[in-house]
């Protein structure tokens, strides 16, 4: 079905080497192949080779041959390939072209110029198969990430290609949505489709994938059956730079001292006459690293935004050791490392970025503080670089450095490790641990059990805007979180 023969590819204007070197694969029809590897290893580039983007969209040098369904990719237009290869990408919010679910699902068919009745038939078929009747007629902006990905899958599914390629489709999804996505892939598998999935989070594909190909530095490192792969021990997976959540064993437990506590009472937020946040009473020991877990729409981001003072309409009081802290003070003392790190980098050099907003120090003091912080965040050598030229992980560290420079005490993270491989996830957890040593209180909204395991010592579980469970790592809590992440 898909054959690549000695494919080489180098992106234009890149300082790195070749993205793919000598990649030769042969994938039979109906196989479900999991592509794994560290960031930059070439798995995404391989997907782009298969769906024609390398040949027709990106600028670069291509060598070798790629055949899909008997067609030579380089000789076929992208719009012709649309009927053979359906692509689902990583970011739910930038994949939809129209504003409503119904029109989005038929978008591809409309482009192809199919007849009205034909399109309706395809629409009915795909909506029924994926069970997304309840999503019809809705504005795409109001859907959760998981729901958007389902609509994206339906949209490419309506074109009925023989091959589906998915590029890290679960990065921004919660556990429930990942399982719904898996159901969709199983439907495709049952219909005999050939499926390629590039992923960091591997567990959810355990019983779905037939074959696993691992990339490293643009070459294929190994190519094995799924059964063999998922029997590898955790250490071996980590050696390959892959994520391998097994049981849930939090490593970082808090030294019990009588620290001060942050107490939150009656925090509420209503939007459009609906109460989207209702926290009656919560006490967090100061200086903890708190994991905020829950499904999409549970109110995690809302809670973080209210707590750090960003939501002007929020009610409720926050006290630290009995002293009330107003929202204005909370903004001054909090920082949020956002999911979309592009929103929070403003200047053209890392040093300027980190020192932004610091107004009460002399030039000398600034220099000193700057070097110290850059050193701690391990970005000293990027001092003069433009923040946007850095990798995702480095950008995150610049953002954190900025928070340190402003003497922020409470730091929030919104999904800091979505889409990161094992090594980078460890880097993030190292930064978090460092900040913890400095006495900062940290809140981490995350779907990543490995991150929680590495560095969190407290947790909050939210459902529908309320906090159902919270506490430190006792036996019951560990068991609860383990089942929540479906690791048992």
């Amino acid at each position: 079905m898909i054959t690549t023969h000695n494919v080489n590819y180098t992106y234009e204007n890149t300082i790195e080497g070749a993205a793919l070197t000598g990649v030769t694969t042969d994938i039979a029809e109906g196989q479900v192949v999991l592509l794994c590897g560290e960031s930059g290893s070439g798995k995404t580039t391989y997907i782009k080779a298969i769906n024609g983007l390398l040949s027709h969209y990106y600028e670069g040098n291509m060598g070798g041959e790629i055949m899909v369904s008997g067609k030579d990719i380089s000789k076929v237009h992208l719009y012709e390939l649309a009927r053979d290869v359906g692509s689902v990408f990583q970011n739910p919010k930038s994949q939809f072209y129209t504003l409503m679910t119904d029109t989005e699902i038929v978008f591809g068919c409309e482009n192809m110029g199919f007849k009205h009745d034909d399109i309706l038939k395809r629409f009915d078929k795909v909506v029924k198969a994926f069970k997304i009747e309840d999503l019809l007629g809705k504005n795409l902006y109001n859907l959760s990430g998981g729901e958007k990905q389902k609509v994206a899958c339906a949209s490419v599914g309506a074109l009925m290609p023989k091959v589906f390629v998915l590029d890290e489709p679960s990065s921004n999804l919660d556990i429930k949505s990942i399982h719904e996505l898996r159901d969709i892939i199983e439907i495709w598998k049952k219909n005999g489709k050939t499926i390629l999935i590039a992923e960091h989070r591997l567990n959810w594909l355990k019983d779905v994938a037939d074959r696993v190909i691992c990339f490293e530095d643009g070459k294929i490192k190994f190519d094995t059956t799924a059964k063999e792969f998922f029997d590898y021990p955790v250490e071996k997976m980590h050696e390959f730079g892959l994520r391998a959540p097994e049981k849930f064993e939090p490593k970082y437990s808090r030294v019990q001292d009588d620290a001060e506590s942050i107490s939150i009472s009656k925090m509420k937020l209503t939007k459009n006459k609906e109460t989207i946040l209702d926290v009656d009473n919560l006490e967090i020991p100061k200086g903890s690293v708190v994991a905020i877990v829950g499904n999409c729409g549970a109110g995690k981001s809302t809670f973080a935004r209210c707590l750090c003072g960003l939501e002007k309409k929020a009610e409720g009081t926050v006290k630290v050791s009995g002293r009330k802290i107003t929202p204005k003070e909370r903004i001054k003392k909090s920082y949020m490392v956002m999911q979309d790190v592009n929103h929070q980098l403003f200047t053209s050099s890392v040093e300027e970025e980190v020192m932004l907003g610091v107004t009460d120090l002399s030039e000398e003091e600034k220099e000193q503080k700057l070097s110290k912080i850059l050193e701690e965040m391990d970005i000293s050598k990027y001092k003069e670089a433009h923040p946007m030229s850095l990798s995702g992980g480095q950008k995150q560290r610049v953002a954190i450095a900025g928070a340190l420079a402003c003497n922020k005490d409470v730091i929030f993270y919104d999904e800091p490790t979505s889409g990161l491989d094992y090594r980078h996830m460890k880097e993030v957890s190292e930064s978090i641990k460092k900040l913890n040593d400095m006495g900062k209180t940290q809140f981490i909204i995350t779907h990543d059990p490995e991150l929680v395991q590495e560095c969190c010592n407290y947790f909050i579980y939210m459902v529908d805007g309320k906090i159902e469970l919270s506490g430190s790592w006792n036996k019951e809590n560990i068991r609860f979180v383990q089942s929540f992440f479906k690791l048992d």
Partner: protein
Amino acid sequence: MDTILRNTKASSRQLYLDPRTKILLCITVSTVMLAMDNTGIFVYIIPVMTIVPLIFLAIIKSPMTAVYYGILYLVAFFVPKMIVAYLPQAVNLLFTGVLATMTRLIPGMSMFYFLIATTSVSEFIAAMERMHIPKVMTVPVSVMFRFFPTIVEEYHGITDAMRLRNVGSFRNPVDMLEYRLVPLMISLTAIGNDLSISALTRGLDAPNKRSNMCAIGFNVQDYIAIAVSVVILILAALSMAFGI
């Protein structure tokens, strides 16, 4: 199953009219407002034109907007007359005059509001495609509409980040612009790139004629509205030519 794709008739949500009719109404109202003065036959027509938006507001059941519109118009109509005698000439020049010209603009803008509020993007694009407007216009227009809410969303994300960093206040206007616009453009171009590959791998560039699933079509009420508009436009042309 139930989906808007199966709709064959315009509903109250669309003001019971085809998008092309609504566009014609927009053009008619704005032409009359702009080009005609209060002489001749138009002395009667102009007040009618200003009431038309109120009718539509009633159809879409939006009483608050109707009140808002009414108040705005009355203010623009009466206030200049009342205050013109009391203010110095310089202020009259620039302020009162502008207020009076509002009476010309408000009906047109409200018609546009209707067009936007009662027509979904897909219906609009369907209308454009029916009018044989080529892809070079329909694709940018649909992308444009799709990006309006995105721009608002991204902008809010950036201003939130700015609040947490305590930057961007009005003290330094250059910085203020830079800190807002640069991350916004970076964000939008990144989303734009992702959107491009998603749309292209679903056949956006196909050279064939595009189908459209949105049901639009003329009905009785459209023909009536079109007839009335055409009559008014003819009268306007005659009025300009022969001054009736």
